[in-house]
């Protein structure tokens, strides 16, 4: 985006993927490891990465919290023979939307400028956080190539 006329356009191509695994030390609650992978050593600051993962962990913890709201949800669901699920979004789904938005924002602000892309863990069954590492493959004449390439490779 923002290719300037007369300027060579640099294209990015997918170079590597890093997978942040789940942290099962506290059971099966959704929590990701905050260990900083070595592949990102030269791409992003450690604090940024850890902040992202910690925020995600907090989001998931909030989603899975068993408390008043989850009780209410369960009772309501039972009372309406689970028809309520057709109308109202569950708490988890709401938090997932928040997470998706957060990841999108992080990608735009922090990771994409560094040639990285975070994939929402829900797409991977919440098993891993996938971080795609892109490399600058030099300039290319095509103006549409890079974005499409990066978009496709990002998937």
């Amino acid at each position, binding site marked *: 985006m923002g290719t300037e006329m007369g300027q060579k356009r640099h294209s990015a191509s997918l170079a590597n*993927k890093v997978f942040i695994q789940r942290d099962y030390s506290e059971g*099966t609650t959704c929590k990701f490891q905050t260990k900083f992978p070595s592949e990102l050593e030269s791409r992003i600051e450690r604090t940024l990465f850890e902040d992202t993962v910690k925020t995600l962990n907090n989001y998931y913890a909030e989603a899975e919290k068993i408390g008043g709201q989850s009780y209410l*949800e369960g009772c309501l*669901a039972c009372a309406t023979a689970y028809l309520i699920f057709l109308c109202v979004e569950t708490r988890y789904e709401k938090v997932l939307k928040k997470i998706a938005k957060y990841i999108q924002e992080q990608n735009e602000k922090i990771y994409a400028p560094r040639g990285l892309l975070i994939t929402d863990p829900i797409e991977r069954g919440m098993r891993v956080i996938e971080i795609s590492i892109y490399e600058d493959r030099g300039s290319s004449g095509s103006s549409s190539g890079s*974005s499409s390439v990066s978009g496709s490779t990002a998937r």
Partner: protein
Amino acid sequence: MKTLAGFAHRGSTFSSGSVTSARFKPTKYIPVSTAATLLVGSTTLFFVFTCPWLTKVISPAVPLYNGLVFLFVLANFSMATFMDPGVYPRADEDEDKDDDFRAPLYKNVEIKGIQVRMKWCATCHFYRPPRCSHCSVCDNCVEDFDHHCPWVNNCIGRRNYRYFFLFLLSLSIHMVGVFSFGLIFVLHHRERLGALHTTVTLVVMCIAGLFFIPVMGLTGFHMVLVARGRTTNEQVTGKFRGGVNPFTKGCCGNVEYVLCSPLAPRYMLDPRKKPHAKIQPPFIRPDLSERQITIKVSDNGIHTTIISSKSKSSLDGLDDKETQPPLPPKADRYNQLKSQLTSSEGKKHKSTAPLCFHQQLSCHSLSGKTHPSTPAMYKFRPSFGTMPKVHYHTAGEKIIMPDERKTSAILEEGVRGHDYRSEPNLDLPEYTNAPLHRTFQSSPLQLDSDPINSRSLSLKQGQRRPEKGQLPALQPQTVTSTPYKSVFSPNTLSNRNGSLSYDSLLNPSISPATASECMAHRGMPSMGFHSPYLPTKMCHIREPEMQRHQVAPTYSPVMPPRGVGRQSPHSRDRDPSPVRYDNLSQTIMASIQERKEMEEREKRQMLHGRSQTHIYAQDSGVFDGGYGLPPNVCYPDGPRGPGSRGPTPPAYGGSRDNLMGVGLVSYGQRTPVLRHAGSTLGRAPRTSSTSLHTDHSSTNSSHSRATAPEGLYRSPAHQPHSPAMPRSPSYSHQKLSYISAHERTDSPQAMKVNGQMDCHPSAQGATHSPSRHSNVKKVTGVGGTTYEISV
């Protein structure tokens, strides 16, 4: 059979994680159909044949109750049947390319202190999370896999276990209810067992009775499982037999978890085409040490390549994921500088320190030397393998720090610098520094806008983000250098042509701004980034030089317009002692500084006290701004300067006074600009003299100390200054003080600005040009420039 079933199951749409084929296997639907038929049918019959009588005889609540229970059963049955149990999507190839061939079959993970084995799933291509199992019927890995229930034709996993359990419970209750009420009916119709209603009720009772045992058995079994926090799979395979279950939360916790936990999300989502963030190189890299920071310091003919737009874009890039391309060649040098600096200074002051040195070094280089003039400078030079050409880029230009905050500030400054430069420059033709001057000005401006913040930020950022930090650090340097430059240029200009100085003083607010910025920058050096030393020196050197040249002849004419003060200081600085600090030895600088201070003091005293004070105030402001001719940056010293300058160096004083008069005018313009610089200045005036003195003394000794952390740079600078050029050092100090004052609003702070202090003194000295001239000493600076130091 198994494969066939598997294949058929692959085609199942219920909860398949694999590609569904069109194969339809009816056999798997037999149990579920049977169960559904039996359930619905029996209950319907019950309601039709048994309930009416019961309603009549017992109460209408009977069918109501039964109806509710039946509804509950149906709902749970439906949920258990149609809900995704928690199927894991197949892993992408990228995920398992390392694992598929060389990975061990099991991977151990510790859960609450207990080693749990995760098995590699060949079908799904990942290590199964704890409690996950692969269902051969569904051909999927299911989270918290319980079992595959044929009666609902679905896996029971994390998501639908609750519904399955409730289904069992409700079904049991329902069966019990149906059986009981049927029995009542039959008992009441014993005599007519052949009747239709009775027969049907009997049949229903039989069905209920028949399935009672398995269902109740299963219900009881699952109740135990729930209480224990185990899955059927774990129970049946004996995983925790005799062992400890790491997944249990206690009996109540487990029950609560099963019944009240939020509904887990589905993983088998349609691949949504969400807009991916654009990945557009160049990319930001966090590692600063690789960056080459280019500090272009040109000598008199310093040409600043202020690429404020560039820096701006860098900022933009940060925000828009458009990262600034790797620093441009010039910037690269910066990076180098930075890296060097950082390495030399250590994290915190990395950016600042090295920059200072670099700046200093650059100054020297500019002046023709390739080595720092003072031993102190050498000290800080380690990172420089060879004296790199320090190009004083405009702050904005050079410091393209990823640091968004800083960069923005810096960019703004740079932009301002441009403005400043765009203004008519009083550069004398001979004043090759003009361009340089501009550079400084721009940077000072930039710095000024955020001198302290940027500096401190840069420091911090340097830590956090080396890249960014470096940039800000660079900027300070640039700023410092520029202030000097600006100091010089405006002053020099004025000095050169007397008119110039005034003009520079009268330059639009930019100059004050720049001056203040300069000053601020100078102060910054104390922060460590800017090489206070270097710029100061340059400024000082230039200033006195310029001032001497210019002030002398044009002192009077200059003075009046200079009343503003800013200019005068500059001019004064220049005229009396256009010595470049970087070129001078420390002793010389120190003496110059002393002289300047003295001159300024004298001048101040000469000038009417009020005006003087005013001037001082102005000076401070002027210095910030005016001194600033180079924008307020320079002036940071000013504030200090005015006070100190006024009385002391005659040149300064005179010029200052003159400037004051003139500067007042310009001050007015610049006042706003000077605010930040001037604020310090405001204070500075009061303490300017003292500051000057202190600077003076401090330059010799404690200047650097005052600034403490950043003073590193300065101290060396100061020390040499004090003996040699009282004026220049004082100016620089003043500037520094301003800058520091800006930060600290304290004269001692001003002292911190070693180099900058000098500028101020020189500026001040400018006003006192006449007197200065009398005391002018000629000092040969680096590069063969001759500076007149007013004594």
